[in-house]
C-alpha cells in the first residue's frame, strides 16, 4: 500500500473514529500500581471488606504471575505508566437530560442516541472508568431483570454478586485477569430471573478517553433457569500515541434451559492492547452464543470460552477479526466439553490487509466424562495483499467416547476473476473489493444488530478506499 494512501486512511480513521473530548475527571489517581492505589479505589467505591481483601490478594497474584509465554509480544506494556482509575462523573445519571453535554456529544458522534431510540431497553454507556449514564426501562424492572453497574450491584445485590463474582474467572487465571481483579472499575451486572425472556438487546458502550488510562471493566451475567436475553457491547476509541491497555473480564452463567447471546464489536484505536478474558459456564440444555468482532487495537488477545458442564449444553462462537497495518488480532475460542451429549461450534473469519496479521487460536477439549459430544470448527482467512499474514493454531484434546470433531480451515485471496467480473458490471475496484470483503464476513455480520452491521460495512468501505491504490 502506498504511503500517501495509508496517511489518507489514517486521517479519515482519526477523523471518523479517533476523536477525543477534553478530559474532565472528578477524581483521578496517580500513575502506576500500588497497594495504596488499590485501597483508594476500594475506598472511593465504599466497598465491603471482602472486596477490599479480594483486590489486595489479586494484586499479589498479579505481581507473581508472568506474561503469557505464547502469542504476540506484550513486552512493551509498562504497567507503571498506566493510570488505574478515573472517575468521570460522581454520580450515575438516571435520565438523559441530566447527562453532561460533553458526554452527549461523544455519544452523538458514536451514534448512541439513535440506538437509544431504537433500543429502549436501556442504554448502559461506560465513559472512562465508570458507568456515566444508565436508564433502565420500566419493562426491565417489571420483569425483575437487574441491569446496572457493577458498583451498584455490589452495594444493592451483594449476596447475588458475591455468589457469582470471580467464580468463573479467578484472579489467578491469567496475569490480566489478576490485574482486572485488583483494579476493576465499571462494567455491567445482569441478572435475568427464571423463565424470563428479555426481547430487546441489553446494550452497553465502552470507550477509553484518557491517555495512559487502563480500562478494567468487569461484567457479570447470570441467566437463570429457562430465561433468555441478548447483551450487546460496542466500542470505538480515540487515537493516541501512547500505549494503552484494556483488560476486561466477563463472566456469564447460563443456567438450565437458558439461552444467552453476548455480542461484542471492538474497534479500539491502534495503540491499545486489548486483552480480554471471557468465559461462560453452561448448565443442562443451556445455550451460550458469543459473537465477537475485533476490528481495532494494536494487539488483541481474546479467546471467549464455554464450559459445558452439564448434559446437553451447547456453546457457540462466531467471530470476525480484521487486521490492518501494525495490528495483530490473535483471537479464537475455547470449548470445554465436561459432560455427555454436549455440543459446540466455532466459526472464525478473518481479513488481513496492509501488513496486518490475524491468528486463530482455539481449543476443543472433550473430557472423559463427555461421551457422545460433538464439535465443529471452521476457520476462514481472507488475505488482501502479500504483506499480510494469517496463522491457525487449532488445538484439540479429546478423550470422551464417540466424540465427533470436525475442523475445516481455508485461506483465500481476492480472486482477480471476481474483481474483473464485478468491475465489468460497472463497479469501481473499491466497490468490488468492499463487496467481496463484506460478502466474506456476511455470515457473521447478519447475526449482528442492524446498526452494528451498517457501521461495520461502512468501516470496511472506508478501509477499502484507503487500501485500493
Amino acid at each position, binding site marked *: 500500500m502506498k504511503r500517501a494512501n495509508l496517511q489518507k486512511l489514517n486521517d479519515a480513521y482519526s477523523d471518523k473514529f479517533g476523536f477525543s473530548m477534553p478530559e474532565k475527571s472528578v477524581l483521578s489517581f496517580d500513575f502506576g500500581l500500588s497497594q495504596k492505589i488499590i485501597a483508594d479505589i476500594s475506598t472511593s467505591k465504599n466497598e465491603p471488606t471482602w472486596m477490599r481483601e479480594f483486590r489486595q490478594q489479586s494484586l499479589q497474584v498479579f505481581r507473581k504471575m508472568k506474561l503469557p509465554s505464547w502469542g504476540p509480544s506484550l513486552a512493551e506494556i509498562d504497567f507503571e505508566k498506566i493510570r488505574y482509575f478515573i472517575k468521570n462523573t460522581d454520580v450515575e445519571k438516571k435520565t438523559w437530560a441530566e447527562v453532561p453535554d460533553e458526554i452527549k456529544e461523544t455519544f452523538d458522534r458514536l451514534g448512541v442516541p439513535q440506538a437509544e431510540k431504537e433500543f429502549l431497553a436501556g442504554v448502559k454507556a461506560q465513559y472512562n472508568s465508570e458507568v456515566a449514564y444508565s436508564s433502565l426501562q420500566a419493562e426491565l424492572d417489571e420483569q425483575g431483570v437487574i441491569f446496572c453497574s457493577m458498583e451498584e450491584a455490589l452495594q444493592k445485590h451483594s449476596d447475588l454478586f458475591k455468589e457469582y463474582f470471580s467464580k468463573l474467572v479467578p484472579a489467578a487465571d491469567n496475569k490480566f485477569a489478576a490485574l482486572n481483579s485488583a483494579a476493576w472499575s465499571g462494567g455491567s451486572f445482569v441478572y435475568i430471573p427464571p423463565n424470563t425472556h428479555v426481547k430487546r438487546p441489553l446494550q452497553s458502550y465502552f470507550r477509553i478517553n484518557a491517555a495512559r488510562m487502563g480500562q478494567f471493566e468487569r461484567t457479570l451475567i447470570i441467566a437463570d433457569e429457562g430465561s433468555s436475553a441478548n447483551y450487546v457491547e460496542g466500542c470505538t476509541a480515540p487515537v493516541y500515541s501512547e500505549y494503552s491497555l484494556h483488560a476486561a473480564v466477563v463472566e456469564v452463567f447460563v443456567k438450565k434451559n437458558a439461552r444467552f447471546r453476548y455480542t461484542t464489536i471492538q474497534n479500539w484505536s491502534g495503540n491499545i492492547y486489548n486483552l480480554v478474558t471471557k468465559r461462560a459456564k453452561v448448565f443442562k440444555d443451556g445455550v451460550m452464543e458469543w459473537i465477537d468482532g475485533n476490528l481495532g487495537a494494536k494487539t488483541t488477545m481474546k479467546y471467549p470460552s464455554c464450559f459445558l458442564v452439564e448434559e446437553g449444553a451447547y456453546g457457540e462462537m462466531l467471530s470476525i477479526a480484521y487486521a490492518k497495518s501494525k495490528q495483530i488480532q490473535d483471537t479464537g475460542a475455547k470449548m470445554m466439553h465436561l459432560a455427555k451429549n454436549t455440543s459446540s461450534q466455532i466459526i472464525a473469519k478473518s481479513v488481513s490487509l496492509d501488513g496486518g496479521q490475524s491468528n486463530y487460536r482455539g481449543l476443543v477439549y472433550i473430557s472423559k466424562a463427555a461421551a457422545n459430544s460433538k464439535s465443529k470448527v471452521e476457520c476462514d482467512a481472507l488475505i488482501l495483499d502479500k504483506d499480510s499474514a494469517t496463522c491457525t493454531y487449532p488445538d484439540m484434546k479429546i478423550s470422551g467416547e464417540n466424540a465427533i470433531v470436525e475442523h475445516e480451515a481455508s485461506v483465500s485471496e481476492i*480472486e482477480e476473476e471476481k474483481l474483473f467480473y464485478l468491475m*465489468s458490471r*460497472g*463497479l469501481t*475496484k473499491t466497490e468490488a473489493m468492499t463487496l467481496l470483503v463484506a*460478502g466474506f464476513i*456476511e455470515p457473521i455480520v447478519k447475526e449482528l444488530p442492524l446498526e452494528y452491521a451498517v457501521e461495520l460495512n461502512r468501516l470496511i468501505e472506508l478501509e477499502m478506499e484507503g487500501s485500493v491504490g
Partner: protein
Amino acid sequence: MLQIKNVQVSLNKKNILDKIDLSIKKGETHILMGQNGAGKSTLAQSIMGHPNYSVKGEIIFAKQNLLKLDPQQRAALGIFLSFQQILEIPGVKVYDYLKLLYKTSHEKKLTPLKFKEFLKERMVILNFNEEFLTRSLNHGFSGGEKKKMEVLQMLVLEPKLIILDEIDSGLDIDAIQVVASAVNFLKKEKESSVLLITHYSRILSFLNIDVVHILSKGKIIKTGTASLVTEIEKKGFTNFLKA
C-alpha cells in the same frame, strides 16, 4: 458504435487473435461463431478489458479508445459482457447488488418502491421468482439460473453494447426464448447493439440477425448474412472450413 481495427491479442506471449477487424453499428445484431478454441471468448473478454490479455491495435467505442480504459470505465460507457464461467459471490445479496448496478448506470434516481417496480418488470420477462432477490449472487444457483441472473443484470444496466458469450449453452428451449426476448426488449427500448457468441442456431430464430462472423484459429475467416449459419448447420464446421 464499436470498431475493432487490426486487433491482435495474446495471453502469456502466446498469440490468440490476429488481424481482427469488426464493426458493429447502433442497433445491429452480430453473431460470432467458431469451433472451440477459436478465440471467441478471448475477443469478448478483450473488448471488456480482462487484465490477463495483452491487446494491440484499436478498439473504439463511442469515440473512445477502449484500450486505455479499465473494465469499470468500459462498463460505464455502456458495454456489457455476459460470462461463460459465471462466478459465485457468497454473502452479496442479489437485491443490494442490483441496486448498486442501477446506481452506477443510471443518472435518474428511483425511490425504493419505483426500483422494485423496475426490477419486477424485468424479472417477469425472465420468469424469475422474486425469492432470488434475497439470495447471494449466483451462490448455489443452477447453471440455468446463473445465466438468467446474467441477463437480469443486463436488463438493469441497459447497456448500449451487449456481448453474450454462449448465453444459450445449457439452456432449454423455453429459457432460450426468454433470454432472446430480454435481448429484444433492450434492442427495442434502447436500440442496443448485440454481439452474440454461440454454437447453436436455436437462439437465432428468435432474433433478427444482421451479420454473421466465422472465427477460426484466431482469425475472422468469413463475414456474411444469416444464411451462413444455415450453411454451417448443414455441413458442420470442419467441412465448411475446407470448402
